[in-house]
C-alpha cells in the first residue's frame, strides 16, 4: 500500500530569500506516529504548512492518499486536521461555536453528538459556552485540538503541541493521540523536546536547516546511533586515570570514585573485557558496574552538531 503522505523533492524559498526547506523526500505510512524533531527554524512548520495548504511550495510536490495537494486540494484537505503552533483563536466566539464552525468549514454536516464527544474527551464540555478570550493557555490548546478533530480527519498534524502546556494536559494529550492512533488516524507531530518523540513516536525524522537528515524507526535509530556508557565505581578513589588506561579515554568523576567508559554498541568489539582486565592489572578494585543507553537527545545533538 502506498504511503498516505508522499513528499517528493519539496523545497520552499520565501520571498525574503530564506530557504526554509531544501529538497525534502519523505513517506509517511498510514497509521503511524511520526515525530519531526528539530531546533527552532529548522523548517518543520513550513513543511506542515505546505501539506495543509497554508504555504505554497516552491518546487516539488506532495500527495496525500494519492491525491495532489494543489490540484486536488478539496480531497486532501478534508483528510487533514491541523493543530497550529500559535494559540490562534478568535476572542468572542464560544468554544461550542468555534468547534462547529471548523467542522462546517471542512465540508461536514453538523453532528452535535460527535462534537460533544470531542469536547468531553478534551475536558472542554464544561467550558462549551465560555468565550475563547476567557480561557487559559492550556484550555486554548485543547480548543485548537478540538477544532482540528471536528471534521474527523484521517491525518492529524500537531505542530509543537506541548509548547507551554502543563503536565496534566500533556498526559491527556498523549492519551488522546494514542487513542486516535489506535482508531487508525495517522499522526505527525513536531517538537524540539526529544523526550516527546521518544515517548510517543513510532518513527523519528530529524530535520535541521531545511534538510531532512534522517528518518528512522525509533528503536532502530536508538540502536544504530546509540552509544552505551559503562560506569565503574571504585572501592578507593584515584587521583587520576592511570597511564596504562589512556587508550580507553575514561572520564573520572570529581571525587575520583567513578570512571565512565563510552562505547559503541554497533562496534565489533566493545572493549569491555579488555578494559576490565586492564583495570585489574592497574590494581584498581571495583565496587560496582552499571551500563546505560544514550537517549535520543544525545543522538540528536550529535547529528545536528555534526558538520
Amino acid at each position, binding site marked *: 500500500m502506498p504511503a498516505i503522505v508522499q513528499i517528493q523533492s519539496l523545497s520552499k524559498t520565501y520571498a525574503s530569500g530564506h530557504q526554509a526547506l531544501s529538497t525534502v523526500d519523505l513517506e509517511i505510512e498510514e497509521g503511524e506516529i511520526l515525530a519531526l524533531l528539530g531546533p527552532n527554524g529548522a523548517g518543520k512548520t513550513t513543511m506542515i504548512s505546505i501539506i495543509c495548504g497554508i504555504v505554497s511550495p516552491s518546487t516539488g510536490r506532495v500527495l496525500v492518499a494519492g491525491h495532489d495537494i494543489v490540484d486536488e*486540494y478539496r480531497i486532501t484537505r478534508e483528510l487533514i486536521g491541523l493543530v497550529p503552533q500559535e494559540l*490562534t483563536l478568535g476572542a468572542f466566539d464560544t468554544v461550542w461555536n468555534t468547534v462547529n464552525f471548523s467542522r*462546517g468549514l471542512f465540508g461536514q454536516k453538523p453532528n452535535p453528538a460527535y462534537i460533544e464527544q470531542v469536547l468531553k474527551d478534551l475536558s472542554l464540555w464544561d467550558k462549551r459556552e465560555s468565550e475563547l478570550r476567557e480561557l487559559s493557555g492550556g484550555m486554548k490548546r485543547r480548543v485548537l485540538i478540538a477544532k482540528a478533530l471536528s471534521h474527523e480527519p484521517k491525518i492529524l498534524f500537531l505542530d509543537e503541541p506541548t509548547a507551554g502546556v502543563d503536565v496534566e494536559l500533556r498526559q491527556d494529550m498523549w492519551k488522546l493521540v494514542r487513542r486516535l492512533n489506535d482508531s487508525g488516524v495517522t499522526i505527525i507531530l513536531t517538537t524540539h523536546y526529544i523526550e516527546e518523540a521518544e515517548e510517543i513516536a513510532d518513527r523519528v525524522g530529524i530535520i535541521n536547516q531545511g534538510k531532512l537528515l534522517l528518518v528512522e524507526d525509533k528503536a532502530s535509530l536508538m540502536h544504530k546511533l546509540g552509544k552505551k556508557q559503562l560506569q565503574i565505581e571504585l572501592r578507593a578513589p584515584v587521583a587520576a586515570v592511570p597511564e596504562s588506561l589512556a587508550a580507553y579515554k575514561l572520564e573520572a568523576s570529581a571525587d575520583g570514585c567513578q570512571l565512565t567508559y563510552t562505547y559503541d554498541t554497533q562496534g565489533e568489539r566493545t572493549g569491555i573485557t579488555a578494559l576490565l582486565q586492564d583495570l585489574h592489572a592497574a590494581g584498581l578494585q571495583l565496587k560496582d558496574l552499571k551500563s546505560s543507553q544514550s537517549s535520543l537527545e544525545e543522538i540528536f545533538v550529535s547529528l545536528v552538531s555534526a558538520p
Partner: protein
Amino acid sequence: MINLQAIRVIYKYEMLRAWNTLLQTIASPVIATSLYFVVFGAAIGSRIEEVEGVSYGVFIVPGLVMFALLTQSISNASFGIFFPKFTGTIYEVMSAPISFFEIVVGYVGAAATKSLILGTIILLTANLFVDLRVEHPLVMVLFLVLTCISFSLFGFIIGLWATNFEKLQLIPMLVITPLVFLGGSFYSVSMLPPAWQTVTLFNPVLYLISGFRWSFFEVADVSVGISLAMISLFLLACLGLVWWMFKTGYRLRQ
C-alpha cells in the same frame, strides 16, 4: 462540487458577529443618518425648498442611504476578512477544502446582507421624517442589491490588502467619504458651476446616487442606463481583482 457547509458557517459566523455588535452595526448608522437628516434636511432644507421639483428633505434620502451603504459595506466586509488575518485564525480558512469562490460568497454575502438590512432600516427611518415615494421599486431594489454586493466586495479587497488597522481605515476615510460628499448626495449636480459639473462626471459615486435617486423621483444627473452600466462595471472590476488576489495568494499564501 461546492462546499455548501463552509459557505453556510462563514455566512452564519459573520451574521452572528453583527448580531453581537448590534449597536455598532445597526444603531450607529441609523443615528448618524438621522443626524444628517436633521442637519441637512431641517436646517439647510428650510432655505432650499425644492430641487428639481422634489422637496429638499425628500431629495437627500437616496443620497443618505447610499452614503450609509457604501461606508458600512466597506467597513463591514473589510473588517470581516482583516480580523482573522490579524489574529491569525485565517490559517483555518486557508487549510480548509474551500475555493476562493466559496470564501467570497460567505464573507461578501454576509456583508452585503447586513448592508441591505441596514439600507432598508434607513429607508424606514427616513419615512418617519418625510413622505417618501418610489416610482420604480424594482430598479431601486436592483440598485440597492448591486451596491451592497459590489461595495462589500470592494471592502473585502481592502481587508485583504490592509496589513494594519491604519490601512484598513485609509481608503474609506480618504477616498470614499469625499467621493460620496462630492457625488451629489446632498445636492443636484445642476446646482454647480459648469466647470465643476464636468469634474463631477469623473466621480463614480455620482452615477450610483443619480441612478438610485432616479428610481425614487425620476430625477437624475445622468441617464439611469449609464448608472447601471457603471455599477456593473465596478462590480466586474472588483470580481476580477479578488479573483486575481486568490489566484496569486496575495497577502494570504506565502
